[in-house]
């Protein structure tokens, strides 16, 4: 028995490795001076190379314990976030261990982000302590954060009440991004509450008139129009996503919504056209997926907007933007050129390694969505074609073809109907509508 216990002990003990040596590495010579890193971050911020500033700040935060360098890094990160970069905050501020104490806006932002990061991890007491260091009642971001928290919990009415004072407040132009986020959240909350007309009003009166345009706003507004049964306008809004400037918004949802509208119109030819448009864009990738080729070879999958792929897409975007900003490395002052070259060359490798952590799963998800949507469009097309052979549809009176009018020259208002012929005009963005003919007979239910 003792022998058995001894053997079992030895076997189990063999599973425990000896304590590993703490990981350590040597910072290459070019990157050893924190003062140079601080100057490099300052240069990036000054030149508007915010992705480089963010990546360099993250590097400094990891490499150095010196408080002054860390503070520079956190200040830069906070500023980049202010400019709209959506890098996952939690990772950055979870390990923040400085105690800035001046009265600059950075200090308030710092403790706010730190509180948020702790709250995300469920460390409520720590979160509360950090939030306690800001003027919660007068700090708009805290109110917005509370609204988001309520939204996540499904308390839509309470979330809306939190947002309303922010919407009534006048913000300076520099805070455009913040108020845009607030307005977008408000519109989404109204959509969740099925108050589509109100939600659409937020997009039409504000979000879709604000530059730079956010392509997802067209899609969200189009969903409102769909539920309001204003299908011609819904298609018109989706038409905006066909602009060259919306190319980077690589979402499949636009096809889903178009297919749903064509179904309402019982329009088999439009479904067929949609299928052809979809296949001309994604057909080769779909075939490659079905043939079992490696997903990593399919460039389209890497940019496809899939909700669950957010972290992966952010990482690939950061890598892309860093490569773009690195092209202007020659602008860096001579005394910083060594560290800048070291930074860009090592960052490219690090980004690639970082992306590879997420890539397989992200590409699997994108491939799955692409193939599923392709099948769904084919199924919907079949469904619509089948509908067309129902006797009640066949013998219904067909709706007249719609033609664009050149002009409606009323005395007071002068309404023009410009038929689109391969160009977008900035001032027409909110005015597109599709001239679609219903195949159902009397048209879709209004």
């Amino acid at each position: 028995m003792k022998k058995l216990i001894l053997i079992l002990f030895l076997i189990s003990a063999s599973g425990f490795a000896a304590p590993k040596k703490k990981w350590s590495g040597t910072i290459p010579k070019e990157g050893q001076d924190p003062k140079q890193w601080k100057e490099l971050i300052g240069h990036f911020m000054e030149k508007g190379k915010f992705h480089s500033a963010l990546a360099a700040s993250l590097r400094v935060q990891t490499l150095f314990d010196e408080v002054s360098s860390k503070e520079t890094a956190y200040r830069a990160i906070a500023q980049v976030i202010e400019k709209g970069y959506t890098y996952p905050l939690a990772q950055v501020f979870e390990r923040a261990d400085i105690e800035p104490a001046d009265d600059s806006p950075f200090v308030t932002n710092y403790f706010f982000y730190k509180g948020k990061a702790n709250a995300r991890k469920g460390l409520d007491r720590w979160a509360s302590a950090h939030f306690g260091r800001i003027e919660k009642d007068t700090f708009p971001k805290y109110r917005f954060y509370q609204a988001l928290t309520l939204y996540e919990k499904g308390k839509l009415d309470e979330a809306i009440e939190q947002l309303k004072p922010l919407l009534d407040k006048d913000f300076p132009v520099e805070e455009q991004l913040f108020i845009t986020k607030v307005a977008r959240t408000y519109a989404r909350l109204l959509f969740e509450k099925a108050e589509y007309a109100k939600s659409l009003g937020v997009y039409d009166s504000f979000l879709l008139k604000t530059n730079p345009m956010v392509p997802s706003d067209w899609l969200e507004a189009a969903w409102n129009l769909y539920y309001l049964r204003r299908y011609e306008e819904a298609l018109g809004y989706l038409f905006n996503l066909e602009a060259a400037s919306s190319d980077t918004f690589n979402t499949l949802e636009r096809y889903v919504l178009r297919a749903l509208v064509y179904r309402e119109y019982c329009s088999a030819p439009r479904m067929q056209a949609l299928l052809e448009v979809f296949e001309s864009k994604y057909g080769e990738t779909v075939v490659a997926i079905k043939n079992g080729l490696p997903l990593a070879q399919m460039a389209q999958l890497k940019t496809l907007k899939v909700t669950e792929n957010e972290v992966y897409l952010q990482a690939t975007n950061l890598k892309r933007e860093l490569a773009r900003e690195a092209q202007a490395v020659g602008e860096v002052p001579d005394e910083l050129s060594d560290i800048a070259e070291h930074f860009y060359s090592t960052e490219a490798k690090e980004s690639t390694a970082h992306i590879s952590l997420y890539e397989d799963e992200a590409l699997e998800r994108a491939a799955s969505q692409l193939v599923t949507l392709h099948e769904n469009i084919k199924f919907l097309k079949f469904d619509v074609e089948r509908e067309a052979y129902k006797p009640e549809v066949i013998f219904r009176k067909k709706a007249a073809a719609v033609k664009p009018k050149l002009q409606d020259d009323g005395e007071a208002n002068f309404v023009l109907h410009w038929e689109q012929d391969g160009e977008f005009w900035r001032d027409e963005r909110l005015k597109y509508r599709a001239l679609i003919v219903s195949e159902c007979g009397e048209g879709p239910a209004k």
Partner: protein
Amino acid sequence: MGMGLLGLFLFFVTPSLANEEAPKNLDGVTVEAVETYRNPKSLELAAGAGIFPLDPYYMGFGLNGGLTYYLSTSFAWEIIGGSYAFSVQKDLTAQLAKDYGVNPDVIEKLEYTVSSNLVLIPSYGKSVIFRSFLQSFRTAFFAGGGLVKTSVSSFPAVSIGFRSDSYLTEAFSWRWEVRDYIAVKDGKNYLSINVGTTVSF
């Protein structure tokens, strides 16, 4: 709501491409833009300046103005339009005085013109400037009758012309115009090239 104003501001201050390429349709469906054209109000006041370049003896510089009532999107009545001219003698006048002793004061100089015209507006449009700025415009032909007053006499004239207005807002536009008064008595032309602004209300 504060954001409404902010949105409006950003819409105008943030540069972006005014137009770009797009597909001709969406899945074979024709897409149209339904737009209420920037249509000025019905009453319009114009003011500007111009030159009368055709007189061989004098260069005329004019200050002009007008009042127009828009009957519809295609027709308008320029109730009154006129120009007061300041003349500056050309080299030829000085040469005549020097070589032949011609007194410049005896040479007929334009003093003012006044007319009333029917305006036809054949085209409205939009242009994009440097792919960044959109500009609405409309063009018009006009014709009517009026009076030309010179330093020697006054006489009736037929007035004709062409103009183009580029709108900054519904209330203001820049205008350029070519206007000719043709004297009924002898067919002499008093052509002017004018630029100015209009205010609609």
